């Protein structure tokens, strides 16, 4: 028995991190990125985190739905 689908908190946390980094990347001045070779790493890595978090979250929610249906049909 799985008591808590671990994909849900992992997915949620990285989705939040992704959104924060994307927003911060869009709003912060370019001088911030002198250290990172002039690349807006916050924005780009935020996209990566959002994609990872979103995928985890999607699978987690689908798994949850499947479990609920299985429990309902019994």
């Amino acid at each position, binding site marked *: *028995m799985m008591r808590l689908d671990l994909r849900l908190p992992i997915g949620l946390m990285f989705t939040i991190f992704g959104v*924060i980094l994307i927003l911060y990347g869009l709003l912060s001045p370019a001088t911030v990125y002198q250290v990172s*070779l002039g690349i807006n790493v916050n924005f780009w890595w935020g996209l990566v985190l959002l994609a990872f978090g979103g995928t985890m979250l999607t699978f987690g929610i689908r798994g949850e739905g499947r479990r609920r249906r299985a429990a309902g049909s019994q």
Partner: protein
Amino acid sequence: MQHIHLGAVDYVILSIYFAFVLGIGWTLRRFVKSSEDFFLSGRSIPAWIAGLAFISANLGAQEVIGMGASGAKYGIMTSHFYWLGAIPAMVFVGIFMMPFYYGSRARSVPEYLKLRFDEKTRGFNAISFAVMTVFSSGISMYALAKLLELVLGWSFHMSVILSAIIVLAYIFLGGLTSAIYNEVLQFFLIVLGFLPLVLLGLKDVGGWAGLTAKLHTVATNAGFAPGAWTESWRHLSAPSANPMGVEWFGMVMGLGFVLSFGYWCTDFLVVQRAMAANSMAAARRTPLLAAIPKMLFPALVILPGMIAIALHVTRGGLLPIGADGTPNYNLAVPVMLGHYLPSGLLGLGLTALMASFMSGMAGNVTAFNTVWTYDIYQSYIRPGQSDAHYLKMGHAATVFGILLSVAAAYATTRFNNIMDMLQLVFAFVNAPLFATFLLGMFWRRTTGHGAFFGLLLGTAAAALHHGFTLPHGAVMGLKGGFLGAVVHTYPSEMAQNFWTAIFAWTTCFVATIAISLLTTRTKSDEDLHGLVYALTARIKDHEQRWYKRPAVLGVIVLGLTLVLNVIFW
């Protein structure tokens, strides 16, 4: 050194992570009803989760900071800890040892020793293990607080108390399940937090080709062949040909065989994660699945150190210089974080660093409370109580385990040598233990007396070897030679450690065989069913799909590791 400045966004990311860690513990608290739930997750963890926790529990301070430091100091040879040591050992534990650990229904490694041998062997292992876990978790805490003080200017006391409270809270609430779930969260955080650092660093030095060229300068400056930092095997013909000061035999036998197998196959901290798996098949797959990401970890933890030293030497002055005039290698990874990551990603990288320390601490605390409750309290202090009583004891053990760790952290600040001393004790205790397990699992004639006295003699041999040898340039004392005479001088501390392990293992192996042959067996063949290879029914895994069979996975993992060894030969 100048402190790294954190912005508001960095603190937001750090706080969100703490909220999730505590939230997971809070959600899981209602599922802890029995002591088995608390200590073994009710044996209900799927293989992929157990596998990621298996790596993460070991991803403590030692790995992230230590491997980065070694990457800077020794170059790619550091990856032998993975490609020669950890991976083959993980395959071995999954295929050959897990059937006994999981199949015997032992609840801990010391308990297996009690079933296989006798009470005294268990007692010896339980007590030495409990002491070691408390100190490791204390040292993890100390290292984290020291690092945050140095890099961010945070108060040492605040860091110790904050990390202690968070780890205490989530283990107290959800037991091992909570620790394992958080370890998986930490695993992804460490990968996704450090990857941008590696990518930016590589881009800056001009990719692998650029890094190789710069590391050639590092190597020739230090008086070695140009490839000494970028080729893992080619410079192992003699100790003087590589920065680690080790030759191939010491490397393969000492690190690859004794130390790595000793750690991954007998240390309850990691084995506990596999024991929590939901079936025998899942328990055996746990270390095998863990091996796949593990073999890529050198890119994440060793490479930043290599980039740091390349930049330090070719561009000048990246790493702070210590009192003895050499760069402070331990700061390689934190300095890189500050060097490349802007506010935002810096918060993520720092969160990953803190996550790694906390997972190392939590791993020790969960292993401690289990061994304390089952192998010491239930066995020697108050046997025969109700399950609810032991569950309560588990909660109490978590609290005083953390309190002892805090005490150990402060003891470390008072006595600088504790960290070195502990590494020593590890080598003394873990290395001979692997000989005991090997004989116990594969030779039914091994007796309890043989195991116990073999273990004692092996530990004594380690102490003797250490007492009569010294690494080059060290003074007599903790580093060796404490028995008053130096019989042999090793080119480096690493070489001395590897050979201490080889002596300890060989002594234990030979002594256990000799004493077993001289003493009578106390356990009959019937008693040893499920505990010894020849007396246990072979597990049939032909019904499973091919990619789930341990042997198939093992061969794939070893094949991939071989490829990595050849690429970076």
